[in-house]
């Protein structure tokens, strides 16, 4: 496989890249001078408040806004019929089922039906936050409740109410993945471990800043100016443009500082469309500031998934042959980014192991719950969790040492690049070394002794390993696995680096950071390529669709910035370098290729006397182009704009075979926890993470991402659950009921790393940050280790009650060994 760029070593220096540079973002944030969604003051700003459904499933029988119109400050509202007439339904990845209409997904409840608690029904605008709240509270909506479907397993039964009448089924997408010959493997394996059902629960990274959308409409130019934490600006633009029948180039999307996204803010286009329509209708700049409660209703949940009829084929010597299961993925009331999750998991089909046979029947299923959005580890962590659970259960049931069993089945260092059952190519790694380091972090031998000593004390010690991959840089052709008519293939990101009129450097990336430190890492790379210092580089904060740095796939998702974002910046900087060389060569009378960039100067190689500072070059190009040879003056604008194209081919859609991801960072976690035998309470005693994301750009930032992903995983495994009751009411609609771990809940984290450069990327770096949900795997394994094989850990959520049930033998009967 070839790469499209040169490495930065062509300039000979790596003065900044690879170092733990303090972040450029920090000063403004520490001084409380950042600018988040709700920070921007705007003249005559009106506020939007949504009237939301209190029912999980109901027909709307009447809407009366007359009382709202009498609230002082009321500006206007948007009703479902109006939204329906002004918009097309949002684009859907799956398309309609054969012979059926598409589901109706609009910015307000479509088709006269609400489909989850918290679904927006009416958007109300007023001249203050208070008036908007009061006016929305004065809107009367009458409902005729319908029977809700809360459990995906019920949703696929013949008598289940149908959530989208047009599609006539609650199955949004269905497909079979069948690689190798799993039937043969199961038939001939020495052992088959069977589990009736496992469940991966619903949670979300719940960014601390909820969504904020500010929409301004300029009738003079027919332009929408949208500001908000937009994690995927061009796709968002496209979704809004097609829905609003408005040219995409007349929608400008700007983000500044973003208080976290972790994927879920990709769903911004839905409420943003309502706000934009109202802003145009009322000719007022409008802002919608999502509350925490609203965010928990519809800000995006991670995919909940049922794994049924799971079978793992294992040999006597511990070799794992293959795996099969049926997946019911609960996507909630609307597909939105789904059913892409039905393809995304296949990026890590093998998980960390040398599986040869894999067969999965996958269904994406509607329920009357909040729609799922991509959430940190999106769709891969569910699959990797079930693989890790099965590995762990097999080790327990067959008496294999959990360490040795994993070491034996891991993809081995000498096998890279390793082609998986479905044609994905694992680029590099050293899983055995990573595991050994992780075990060192928790002092594994000592932990086993601790475990022995705890026997009979009322406490139990469990030790668990979580092996996971962070697949980064999507091949969007995988969307064709879901719908072959989709035009997607490959992936790009954009970048722009320019030399301003005074010789200062400004860089813009298409990636949109929400805490990952893009300004920092971009500056490190650009400084090296231009021979400048880190402080010389100014990096644009956030994203701006008008700055031409973006491509269609731009944004921050799928662990890719270190590859795509940095790749595009490298390419853009090279273009700028080339222009600087052209100008300096012309002025200094040297060949452009003999110009080197160093110390803020463009110098003739091996001739210290002949050099031009960057400000002189900028001055000549911007203000004295007449002094340059025409062929140089015509070519240079001192703006390097480039894309990075990830080298992908189209997969074979029949076989569902091909490379879907460019890089695979790995994370191995190990933990020691203690369980109170009487209460089921767990306490994490030691926690270690070993990360391998190739060549680091900023090791400090990488460690921070690993810490953050670990906290999400630990909190999800033990505390966080978007549960719904039988009526479809969300039981964790705020941070009181949804317990996001605090510092007091968290153990100290011990970090180490391995560096396996990627052979496929510009500087050997791999995308990272999502973390693959390793703590969920490790904690489940540790609880299982403490329980023994008396009870079985078959759910990813393990609050004290679940642990206590396991100690008493729960679910043991669901696991069989043949």
């Amino acid at each position, binding site marked *: 496989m070839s790469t499209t760029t040169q490495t930065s070593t062509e300039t000979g220096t790596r003065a900044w890249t690879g170092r733990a540079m*303090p972040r450029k973002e920090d000063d403004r944030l520490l001084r409380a001078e950042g600018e*988040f969604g709700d920070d921007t003051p705007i003249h005559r700003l009106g506020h939007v408040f949504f009237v939301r459904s209190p029912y999980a499933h109901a027909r709307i029988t009447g809407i009366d806004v007359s009382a709202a119109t009498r609230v*002082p400050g009321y500006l206007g509202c948007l009703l479902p019929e109006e939204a329906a007439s002004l918009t097309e339904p949002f684009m859907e990845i799956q398309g309609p089922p054969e012979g059926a209409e598409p589901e109706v997904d609009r910015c307000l409840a479509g088709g006269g039906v609400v489909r989850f608690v918290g679904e927006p029904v009416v958007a109300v605008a007023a001249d203050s*936050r208070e008036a908007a709240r009061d006016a929305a509270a004065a809107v009367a909506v009458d409902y005729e409740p319908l029977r809700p479907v809360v459990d995906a397993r019920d949703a696929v039964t013949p008598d289940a109410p149908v959530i989208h009448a047009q599609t006539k089924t609650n199955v949004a997408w269905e497909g079979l993945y069948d690689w190798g010959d799993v039937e043969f493997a199961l038939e001939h394996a020495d052992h088959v471990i069977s589990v009736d059902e496992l469940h991966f629960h619903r949670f979300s990274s719940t960014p601390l800043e*909820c969504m904020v959308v500010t929409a301004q409409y300029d009738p003079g130019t027919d332009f929408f100016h949208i500001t908000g934490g937009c994690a995927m600006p061009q796709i968002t633009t496209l979704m809004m443009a097609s829905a609003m029948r408005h040219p995409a180039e007349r929608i400008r999307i700007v983000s500044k500082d973003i208080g976290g996204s972790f994927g879920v803010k990709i769903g911004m286009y839905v409420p943003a469309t309502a706000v934009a329509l109202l802003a145009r209708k009322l000719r007022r700049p409008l802002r919608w500031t999502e509350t925490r409660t609203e965010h928990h209703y519809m800000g995006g949940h991670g995919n909940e998934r049922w794994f049924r009829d799971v079978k793992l084929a294992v040999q006597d010597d511990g070799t794992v042959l293959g795996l099969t299961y049926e997946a019911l993925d609960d996507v909630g009331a609307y597909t939105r980014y789904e059913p892409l999750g039905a393809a995304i998991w296949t990026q890590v089909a093998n998980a960390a192991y040398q599986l040869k046979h894999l067969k999965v029947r996958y269904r994406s299923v509607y329920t009357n719950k909040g729609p799922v959005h991509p959430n940190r580890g999106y769709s891969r962590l569910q699959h990797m969790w079930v693989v890790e659970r099965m590995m762990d259960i097999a080790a327990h049931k067959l008496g294999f040492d959990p360490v040795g069993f994993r070491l034996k089945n891991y993809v081995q260092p000498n096998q890279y690049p390793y082609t998986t059952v479905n044609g994905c190519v694992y680029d590099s790694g050293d899983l055995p070394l990573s595991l050994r380091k992780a075990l060192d972090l928790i002092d594994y031998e000592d932990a086993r002794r601790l475990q022995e000593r705890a026997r009979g004390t009322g406490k139990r010690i469990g030790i668990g390993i979580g092996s996971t991959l962070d697949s980064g840089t999507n091949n969007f052709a995988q969307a064709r696995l879901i719908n072959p008519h989709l035009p997607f293939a490959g992936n790009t990101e954009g970048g722009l680096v320019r030399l301003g009129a005074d010789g200062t450097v400004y860089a813009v990336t298409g990636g949109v950071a929400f805490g990952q430190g893009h300004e920092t890492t971009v500056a490190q790379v650009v400084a090296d390529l231009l021979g400048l210092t880190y402080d010389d580089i100014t990096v644009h904060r956030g994203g701006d669709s008008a700055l031409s740095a973006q491509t269609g796939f731009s944004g921050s998702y799928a662990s890719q910035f270190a590859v795509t974002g940095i790749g595009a910046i490298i390419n853009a900087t090279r273009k700028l370098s080339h222009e600087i060389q052209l100008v300096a060569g012309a002025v200094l009378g040297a060949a452009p290729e003999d110009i080197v960039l160093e110390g803020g100067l463009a110098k003739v190689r091996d001739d210290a006397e002949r050099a031009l500072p960057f400000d002189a070059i900028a001055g000549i190009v911007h203000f004295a182009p007449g002094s340059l040879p025409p062929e140089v003056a015509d070519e240079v604008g001192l703006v390097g704009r480039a894309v990075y194209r990830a080298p992908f081919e189209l997969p074979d859609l029949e076989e569902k075979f091909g490379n879907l991801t460019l890089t695979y960072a790995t994370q191995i976690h190990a933990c020691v926890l203690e369980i109170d035998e009487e209460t089921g309470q767990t306490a994490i005693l030691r926690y270690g993470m070993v990360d391998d994301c190739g060549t680091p750009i900023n*090791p400090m930032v990488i*460690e921070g991402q690993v810490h953050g992903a670990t906290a*999400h995983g630990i909190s999800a495994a033990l505390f966080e659950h978007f549960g719904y009751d039988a009526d479809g009411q969300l039981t964790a609609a705020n941070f009181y009921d949804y317990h996001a771990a*605090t*510092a007091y809940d968290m153990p100290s984290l011990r970090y180490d790393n391995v560096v396996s450069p990627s052979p496929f990327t510009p500087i050997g770096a791999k995308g990272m940050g999502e973390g693959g949900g390793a703590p969920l795997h490790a904690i489940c394994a540790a609880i299982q280790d403490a329980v023994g094989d008396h009870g079985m850990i078959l759910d990813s959520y393990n609050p004290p009650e679940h642990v206590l049930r396991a100690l008493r033998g729960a679910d043991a009967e669901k696991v069989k060994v043949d």
Partner: protein
Amino acid sequence: MTVADHTTVESPAPDVHAIEVVVDGRTEEGTVSSRTLLVHWLRDELDKRGPKIGCDTGNCGACTVRWNGRLAKSCMILAVQADGTEVDTAASLAAEDGTLNNLQQCFKKHHALQCGYCTSGMLMTATDLLESGEEITDRSVRRALKGNICRCTGYENIVRAIRAAAGQDVQKPHGHEEGEAQ
């Protein structure tokens, strides 16, 4: 639900109040309605970006300020209650010329912030802890931070930064080189 008609209800409790509050050392005057939360007044009227809103239930602590020297969450205080008091936000921490104070520098050095949304609240709580004279340990810092949620950092580096600000020798960020430029 019904909306109170602001013009006709007669009540000894007024609906609008003039307030005067010393915010970050400067006397600020304003007119607020009874229900206006302090956090909204600070943000919407004074453009104070330190206090942030991250929840509806007083759990997240992003709005933490010091009120008459005591740590408090400004989402659970009415603006009118602040009349005649002093409020300090995170904007008061750095020097006039923007130079970061010791705690802020430790946050930067130890990578104790990512998206930055919780940071102002964290800084206010940490300042209060460090000035309290309480013993600073890993556990005591974690306990002090109970009322501040961060969804990015996993807290590890925040705890280290606060301990470093207390003069303790803590683990440096991965890849840190001695004598690294700050």
